[in-house]
């Protein structure tokens, strides 16, 4: 073989390797919003100049305040890496957005700016000015491409109908109105029940807004169905009913007893860890009138059954459902788990992994994440922060299994936690993991188990990781410890 051919072969081989490595990565560090959207951030800052909408100075001033707070919200979210632009999930959602936009050019002349929000809550939101964000939680939750498309079309409808812009104007108009000022002055002049009066003013405004908002929601639902029809995506009103169970993620039960998820790694498990010993109020049967649910009049969205009833006539007779590709689901779930981990909420992170294990996943990345979680918990314990890393939730909001898991995290003795870290560190699954994962393991070892727990040692280890694994998505984690 000639040297030129050998060289060509080597180049091809290295390209193949790079492609494979990229496939294993969920995304790169550069895909995080503070890097990826840096240019858009600057242009948004320049482009989003508050238009003149009020003739009076006060009204315009309020409007500018509200308008600028929206810009600040978006820019801050970009800076804090609330969004990611990965190479599989984002294009998949962008494909849906494009399909809807292309088929409705009359209403959507330009493609919207789509943002993929890393938030686990089942939600999407329109920011106005053709900006749209879809949460990872919605992608996971959606049962089909069509269901996801409905949520996206709904938010696009808000943008088409200028709901966000109108809401800002309405708010400014209310806050600068004589009626509002007079009612505030009435509070000042009253001697008694001042807070109650003030709350009534604010609630009155909220109620009025909610009523409008609910009307807007119905409008957006109707337009979304038209948008979907125009691009041949079938609509089924049952999607609204499915939405009703959006907040039940952690109500799901595990398929196996909790101990099995650990003994499979040959780790000792003491059932008493997962049994609450506290005599505190959290263990009692309290039943205060529920203050967490909103008064019906204050809800911004109509109830899901109501939305279903209103739109069921427009459902396709024989809806064809396109499943969301498994690889998209898998990646979304992993991105979500990683995001929960970097934000330091370890119980939901591990619970989601166990739910994946229940589905039969053998992906070693999940074993790697379980290991990270225990290292993270030990590190939090070392820094007297285990409580916040667990994020204890009251029993009524979660399943018994979730409750047991958070109790285990809370009550597991420090020595056993260390034993778990060491056990996971020696796990067989490491052999099938690539180098950035190994690098992170080494960093976590320094953070959690290294006798030298000085800031300098942590920074040094983080720097070493970032240098050896430049561009890895895990650099987001090491950034927290690297002193720059």
């Amino acid at each position, binding site marked *: 073989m000639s040297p030129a051919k050998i060289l060509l072969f080597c180049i091809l081989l290295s390209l193949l390797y790079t492609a494979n490595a990229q496939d294993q990565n969920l995304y790169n560090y550069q895909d995080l919003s503070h890097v990826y959207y840096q240019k858009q951030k600057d242009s948004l800052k320049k482009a989003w100049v508050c238009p003149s909408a009020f003739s009076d100075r006060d009204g315009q001033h309020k409007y500018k305040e509200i308008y600028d707070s929206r810009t600040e919200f978006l820019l801050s979210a970009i800076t804090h890496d609330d969004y990611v632009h990965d190479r599989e999930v984002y294009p998949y959602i962008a494909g849906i957005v494009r399909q809807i936009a292309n088929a409705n050019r009359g209403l959507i002349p330009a493609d919207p700016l789509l943002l993929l929000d890393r938030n686990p809550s089942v939600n999407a939101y329109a920011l106005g000015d053709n900006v749209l964000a879809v949460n990872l939680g919605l992608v996971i939750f959606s049962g089909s491409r069509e269901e996801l498309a409905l949520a996206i079309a709904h938010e696009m409808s808000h943008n088409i109908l200028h709901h966000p812009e109108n809401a800002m104007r309405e708010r400014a108009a209310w806050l600068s109105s004589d009626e509002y000022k007079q009612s505030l002055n009435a509070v*000042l002049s009253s001697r008694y029940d001042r807070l109650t009066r003030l709350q009534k003013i604010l609630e009155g405004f909220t109620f009025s807004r909610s009523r409008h908002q609910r009307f807007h929601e119905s409008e957006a639902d109707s337009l979304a169905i038209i948008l979907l029809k125009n691009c041949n995506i079938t609509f089924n009103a049952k999607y609204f009913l499915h939405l009703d169970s959006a907040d039940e993620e952690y109500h799901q039960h595990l398929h196996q007893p909790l101990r099995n998820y650990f003994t499979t790694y040959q780790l000792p498990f003491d059932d008493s860890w997962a049994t609450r010993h506290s005599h505190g109020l959290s263990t009692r049967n309290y039943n205060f009138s529920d203050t967490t649910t909103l008064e019906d009049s204050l809800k911004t969205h109509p109830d899901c059954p109501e939305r279903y009833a209103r739109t069921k006539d427009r459902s396709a007779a024989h809806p064809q459902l396109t499943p969301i590709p498994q690889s998209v689901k898998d990646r979304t779930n992993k991105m979500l788990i990683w995001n929960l981990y970097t934000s330091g909420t370890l119980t939901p992170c591990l619970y989601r992994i166990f739910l994946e294990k229940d589905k039969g996943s053998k992906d070693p990345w999940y074993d790697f994440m379980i290991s990270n979680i225990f290292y993270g918990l030990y590190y939090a314990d070392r820094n007297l922060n285990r409580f916040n890393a667990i994020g204890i939730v009251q029993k009524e909001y979660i399943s018994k299994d979730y409750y047991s898991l958070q109790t285990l995290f809370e009550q597991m003795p420090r020595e056993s936690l260390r034993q778990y870290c060491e056990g996971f560190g020696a796990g067989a699954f490491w052999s099938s993991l690539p180098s950035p994962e190994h690098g992170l393991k080494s960093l976590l070892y320094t953070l959690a188990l290294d006798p030298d727990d000085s800031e300098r040692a942590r920074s040094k280890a983080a720097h070493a990781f970032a240098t050896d694994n430049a561009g890895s998505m895990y650099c987001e984690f090491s950034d927290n410890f690297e002193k720059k």
Partner: protein
Amino acid sequence: MKNTVYALFLILFTTTVHAQTKVFKEVSEDISSSLEPIIQDGKLVGYLFFTTLEKSSADSFNYRLSIMDENLNDIGTVNFRQEHLDLKEVSFEQDVMCLAYIKSNFAGKEFKNGKEFKRETSKARTSLFAQFVDLNGKIVGTSTIPMDIKPESDYVYTSNYRTKLYGNGRLKHPLQLKNIPGKGFACFYGDDSKNNLLVYNTAGKMTWKNQVREDATDFAMLTSGTEIDLLVKRTDPMKEGGFEILGYNTKDSTTYPKFVLKDKKGNSLKVLAFENDPATGKPYVSGMIIDPRNGNRFVTGNNLRHGPYDGVFSINLNGHAKKDIQASFSYWSDGSQTFVDNHGFFQEPQLYANVERSFKDFSGNTWFAACGVKRRFRWGGLAWGTILSPLILPPFLYLGGGLHRYAFKDVLLIKQDGAGHMSLATTVPEGAGQYQFCAYPLYTVDPRSYYTVSNPDTRSDYLIINSEKNIEIYNVSQNKMARSVPRKDGNSVINVLPAKEGYVMVYEFNRKERTTRLSIEAL
């Protein structure tokens, strides 16, 4: 923490930018909150945020109770209207919370001037207001008992450098509230004319009342089973002595004979702990045996040198018959101990012990935590005093402060086992503090405070030593340091406070970012 009170503040403050700041400022100025722990059997089971929301009429206010579990998660709120209330204690029994307030129509009330205050004093009313709230958020009962408190007034400086005159009043003996397991709640207070001991059931009905006629300077109440014990501190020739225990049985209204705290030689005892034994659940007292000759000289470092105490004691009050009272007196004043001389000087660490805290562990041992006091002779002072002796004033300046100086050093843990044998279990190393003149009172220079945390599951006891630089968490059962938490870490100031059973609350304030972190951590 999804606290509704915070949510309220959030509504107020986030909307401030959009509205007339003055309204929000004035309304928020009327809101005040206090956080009280909810206690059952001496253990924290939750927290209660008591918020005064607004004035609702000339003499009443709207209040909100926000109840949180032991993990600071909101579990419910209760709104109500009442006269001016000052929440003192919260206790919990059989799924009912008892909140003891002082209700007054003049305490906390703003008066225009002294004349108006004097005019109003004839109408002044104060009462004990007990409120009973169940875990459905229902106020199941209330009780109001008039109190006899002399109206007083206080000038309070406001933010704009003006003074405001507020009504005030003080109880002679502060209000104490404890649960009685399986029965209800015991409440004790002393006003200007009487000392009242009351028992309520969980429905809020007063079931027993007793007027305590002892003339005392202090009272401490303890409930154990159906019994209520009152530790009474009387005026005594030995200033730190004069303790007695009064016992009552709420089951059959029996009043037990008074138990006077003295050792067999008739020496007075200084009480450091009056609690329930974690192993038996029965009351015990422990503390120091006061030396009859030097016992009234206990204030300064120099006083310690003369031996104000003869040893330590613990008395288990397992019942009221003579056989049920197990007393252990361990003396060092008789020279019987090898590790401490008869003046209370501990040989090995070369320190005197300023004993400040006592507690019992799960194994029946009684522990005494002391701040080690190191003595140093002032050779320099003596030399300069001698050299300058021909002059009149300078020698006084050099020697007036005494020939010794004292500094606080390691923490000493003295152990008295069940059989009454005393030993120096350990010294917890602490850096020496600054040397002080021997005439300085110890309490003004002692930088440390102590409290204990128990974990009944592991039957472990921890002593938390709050020092100037660090918070040391010492595992008494394993005789080792569990953790050392620096008070200052970079920009953060850290404090460790008691929390639910077996846990501590870590409070961290970042001065640079002006953020607060709360964390409830296992020991």
